């Protein structure tokens, strides 16, 4: 059976579309042109928030509280003193930040 001119034009267009265009570096050019702002934004926000939280905790802590004293108290197995609680809180916050940053990296 002979193909109609309509069928032949249809086939010609589909064959031309299938032929496609080789990449020839186009994808790399796109990759290098993509905006990168978001890559550092979340870690920066996280670190900024952690720093702000640490500063606030320091300012609002009861007088006489010190991180050094807290770690000394912990070393002496005295975990109930205000300084020891502040040190545990700070250590936990830093551990959470580290875990989130590692997850971002992966």
């Amino acid at each position, binding site marked *: 059976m002979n193909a109609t001119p309509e069928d032949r*034009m249809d086939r010609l267009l*589909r064959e031309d579309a299938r032929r496609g265009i080789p*990449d020839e570096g186009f994808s790399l050019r796109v990759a290098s*042109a993509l905006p990168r702002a978001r890559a550092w934004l979340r870690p920066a926000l996280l670190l900024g928030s952690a720093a702000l939280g640490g500063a606030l905790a320091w300012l609002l802590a009861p007088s006489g509280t010190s991180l050094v004293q807290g770690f000394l108290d912990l070393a002496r197995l005295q975990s109930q003193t205000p300084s020891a609680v502040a040190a545990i809180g700070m250590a936990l916050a830093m551990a959470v930040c580290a875990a989130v940053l590692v997850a971002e990296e992966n």
Partner: protein
Amino acid sequence: MVDRPDPADSELVLAVVARDDGEAFARLVRRHQSMVRSVLRRLAKGDAALADDLAQETFIRAWRNLRSFRFDARFSTWLYRIAFNTWLSEARRRREVLLEDSPEAPEAEEPPPGAPAEDRVDLERAIASLPDGERAAIAACYYADLTHEEAAAAIGIPLGTVKTHILRAKAKLRARLGED
């Protein structure tokens, strides 16, 4: 070792949205660059440099707006819509574009008379000579492989107009390529 099959577009989109995965987006670009550039070359009347600039802009817009992709259409359809709008913005910046069926829709260029029809124009030049609306319909339905309904939605014209554009465009292409 068993090779992991190529992830579907939707998996790659999710990877980009969830963790800004640049490698996943690079795979989407490699997978769809041919379609996007082919479509834009037809829309840009064969101007490969302009088409590639618009294709790059298309993928940058896709990267910025990927969170708005709703998975209710194929990723390639969504990408075609961005490519078409990118071309439309550029074309409108340069001049008025006529997508609707209009008697004033200009023929871009007539093939020079004299030579046999087969030798006058190849397919790309023949497509470049079509009016904007017909060229957009051919690019959508053949080079982006959209259905008539998807093409109508993406271009923003009625379904009947898409069908008319396709019929008229193919008749003109047949005449210009000496298929009749």
